[in-house]
């Protein structure tokens, strides 16, 4: 059987976080609308005679994204009408950018830690358009809510440069992190502010052909992106193996059944009849405006990763993991600030225990029950020797469960590590007295017994015994028995 490799391109639709809509003054914060059709005006409902005016804030944000994606910001860009009929499209056309996108020719690096090394994914273009209204189906009829109609939408189109699902996921993750770092999109997939479309084709490994592709629309989570892409790659490979042909079509993703489903065939392919939007003048973006945007760029994930390596002595891989999520990197830095412990130790706790709990419980990084200051306090308790690492994990679990501070939990449960020499010496003496046989074996040269004795002390103190002090006391006591 031939081995196939996928060719994947992504279209990412990101709603921009502006105060007002793309072409009118209505609030773009439709998620906070008290009820349907309250954030509307003649422009965004497409009343006869209403005219669009470009939201300059959306232009600013799009320029920032373009720059962050290493794009060229085109000095002359223009809007066009994309014509089609649908009840969620008030004017019967969408104002979008077609021949003259705002940004083009960019790139992004992905999979830096893979064996093959980093891969550069081309960003074909990023262009502005307006979101549609929302349809709600009720039995035999549908209702339209125009609160979302006209919200600025940035469409980021990649080259078909990705050849694994992992690459596609990493690309999408990085774009999302950039959007969130720039503050232009919350990245909240559940609210639909970020949506993916994947173009997928397959070819025999070694081939450079671009074969017929399908387009999977409306992928609203990373999980859906990964599963749908993987499924579609398999489907196409099997189809070709069994003598079939892939036809160009739009697919939907059936989350429940885990399959892609054809939505419309090529015979119904749209002719959008694009032409320049005559209600808007061409948009000139001069070099000064681009320079100003460049100067206003915040620290982007790539730069921040480098800084983490340099300032916090993290490995590039560790730093990249933290920076895959703006919120995670922010959490890390806040915890490092609050902690006395070294940054590496803080990272160890975040990348290990904290993320495990977050993933297991499916928690939102921005609203964790354990704020960075408390994690810092916990790490410091371990580093300072008040509790040992095992107890620390236990306390962290309790912090997630109860929302209490680590100090409170340690005090309430009496978990403080016993490092008092006198108290521990009592325990050590008792253990040695209770186990004369094992002591004899040790004295006869069986050194592994030492670890067993350490364990007995730990058990007797329910894990609170400071291992370092215990070791010293045990060594001393055993030496005394050898040479009384």
């Amino acid at each position, binding site marked *: 059987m031939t081995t196939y490799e996928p060719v994947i391109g992504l279209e990412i639709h990101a709603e921009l976080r502006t105060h007002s809509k793309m072409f009118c003054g209505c609030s773009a914060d439709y998620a906070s609308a008290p009820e349907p059709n309250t954030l509307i005006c003649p422009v965004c409902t497409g009343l006869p005679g209403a005219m669009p005016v470009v939201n300059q804030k959306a232009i600013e944000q799009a320029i920032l994204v373009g720059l962050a994606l290493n794009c060229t910001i085109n000095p002359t860009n223009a809007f066009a009408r994309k*014509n089609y009929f649908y009840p969620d499209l008030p004017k019967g056309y969408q104002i979008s950018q077609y021949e003259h996108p705002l940004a083009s020719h960019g790139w992004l690096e992905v999979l830096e830690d893979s064996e093959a090394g980093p891969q550069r994914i081309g960003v074909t273009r990023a262009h502005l358009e307006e979101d549609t209204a929302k349809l709600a189906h009720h039995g035999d009829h549908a209702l339209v809510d125009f609160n979302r109609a006209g919200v600025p939408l940035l469409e980021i189109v990649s080259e078909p440069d990705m050849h694994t699902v992992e690459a596609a996921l990493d690309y999408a993750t990085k774009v999302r992190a950039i959007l969130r770092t720039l503050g232009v999109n919350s990245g909240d997939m559940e609210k639909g502010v970020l949506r993916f479309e994947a173009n997928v084709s397959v070819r025999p490994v070694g081939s450079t052909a671009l074969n017929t592709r399908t387009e999977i629309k409306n992928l609203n989570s990373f999980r859906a992106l990964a599963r749908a892409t993987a499924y579609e790659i398999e489907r196409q490979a099997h189809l070709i193996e069994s003598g079939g042909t892939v036809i160009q079509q739009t697919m939907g993703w059936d989350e429940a059944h885990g399959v892609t489903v054809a939505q419309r065939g090529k015979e119904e392919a749209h002719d959008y*009849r694009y*032409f320049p939007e005559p209600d808007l003048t061409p948009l000139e973006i001069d070099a000064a405006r681009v320079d100003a945007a460049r100067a206003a760029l915040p620290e982007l994930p790539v730069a921040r990763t480098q800084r983490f390596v340099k300032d916090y002595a993290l490995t590039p891989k560790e730093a990249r993991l933290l920076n895959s999520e703006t919120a995670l990197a922010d959490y890390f830095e806040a915890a490092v600030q609050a902690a006395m412990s070294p940054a590496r130790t803080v990272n160890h706790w975040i990348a290990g225990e904290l993320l495990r709990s977050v993933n297991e419980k499916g928690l939102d990084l921005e609203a964790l029950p354990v704020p960075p200051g408390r994690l810092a306090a916990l790490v410091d308790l371990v580093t300072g020797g008040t509790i040992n690492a095992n107890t620390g994990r236990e306390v962290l679990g309790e912090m997630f469960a109860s929302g209490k501070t680590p100090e409170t939990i340690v005090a309430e449960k009496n978990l403080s590590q016993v490092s008092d020499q006198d108290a521990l010496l009592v325990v050590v003496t008792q253990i040695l007295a209770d186990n004369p046989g094992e002591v004899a074996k040790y004295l006869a040269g069986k050194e592994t017994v030492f670890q067993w004795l350490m364990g007995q002390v730990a058990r007797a103190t329910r894990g609170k015994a400071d291992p370092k002090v215990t070791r010293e006391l045990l060594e001393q006591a055993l030496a005394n028995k050898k040479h009384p």
Partner: protein
Amino acid sequence: MDPTRLTVREAHDLLVRRQLSSLELTRAALARAHALDEKLHAFVTFSDELALEQARRADERLARGDSVGPLTGIPFAAKDCLSTRGVRTTCSSKILENYVPPYNATVVDRLDEAGAVLIGKHNMDEFGMGSSCENSAFFPTRNPWDLERVPGGSSGGSAAAVAAGLGAFALGEDTGGSIRMPAGFCNVTGLKPTYGRVPRYGLIALVSSFDSIGPLGREVEDCAAVLQAIAGRDPRDATSLDAPVPDYLAGMQKPVKGLRLGIPKEYFAAGIQPGVEAALRAAIRQFEGLGMEIHEVSLPHTRYALAVYYLLLFAEASANLARFDGVRFGLAAGQGAENVIDLFLQTRREGFGPEVKRRIMLGAYVLSAGYYDAYYLKAQKVRTLLRQDFAAAFGQVDALLAPVCPTTAFKLGEKLDDPLTMYLSDIHVVATNPAGVPALSLPCGFADGLPVGMQLIGPQLSEDRLFQIGHAYQAATDWHTLRPPIDGGAA
């Protein structure tokens, strides 16, 4: 004194001298409009209540004597493609038969601020698609000079109403002659301003790139006063120009001696009705008599103007009319439809007239994949040539003089079944719109008892110059003062 025979300027003089109230003037206009509209069908909607309210407010302003302008208290009506809050706005289409806009077009707001009084909405060719006003979905408007003839289009209701004294002036809209052509047919003065001079916000679009809102009045001075009130940048219209608005009434008085008037030879080619040409030639002599220099000039791409105009019209109109889908406003047919596509189809099938459907189909065709370059793109390129033609001509002369229409008003039904002949009646007025330049249409005589119009075309933002030349002509001639014999030989 019959207040309905007054020009804006005459009425204003009486209003400020308190010899006439706006309420009297408005009541007279409404009474005459209601009575004569039985014959003319120039109005789709009357707004008596709003008009009387506005007239009362105008009278208060006049009594206080503050913020009184040339239009305060003056009754007018607007073409029915201009959105008027609370007053039905139909575009003379069944699809908007019961549509009442929740907002005013910018120009309507500006006239309201100026104190003008809106008495109603004028009939037009459906969505501006036509040259005779016969394409109204409701009824054709008649020409007050001969009720068997068309008033021209598409602002036919506006021209007929102003000619017959149903309101002192009108707000019209000119996409490719829609103000000038009916002005010529009805013996009134009308201005198509520079594209972008008057904001379009609230104008129900036909061709967004060409649509120009402008005044129709009984004389140049009235048009100048109206333009003064409606011109200027509007932040809600991204295509409106930011250029300062000159004092049109002051600039108008300057002498025209020494100005150069161009006669584009292509506009006097074969096909012009002899009486029309004779009237134009007489007008040229008149201008010569006023001390203007007359030069023959050439606009070599004129023969492509009609094709460019219609191709771009079809394309833009097909998109502009896509929003009429029965979902949010206007006619919603197909309530029992199985699916939403049927709802769209049935609404549009029932709501649009044949000419509108024809143009939407042609528009979808010229924009479709495989034809875009050959039609839309080519037309845009030739449009640039048309612009260059005008630019070159205006390097030689200050303004151009041309006929408005090759013929006088034709009979109702004469061209209705032959769309192409109907399109050809626009041949002299369409080039200005793709070029974006202003043009003033003026009465210049009669042929076989019917009015003949001429147009003065100028470079961009030369409205002041056009008013100046037009005013000088009207000061020297009486054509514009003649009134149609609609109420029994009153002319």
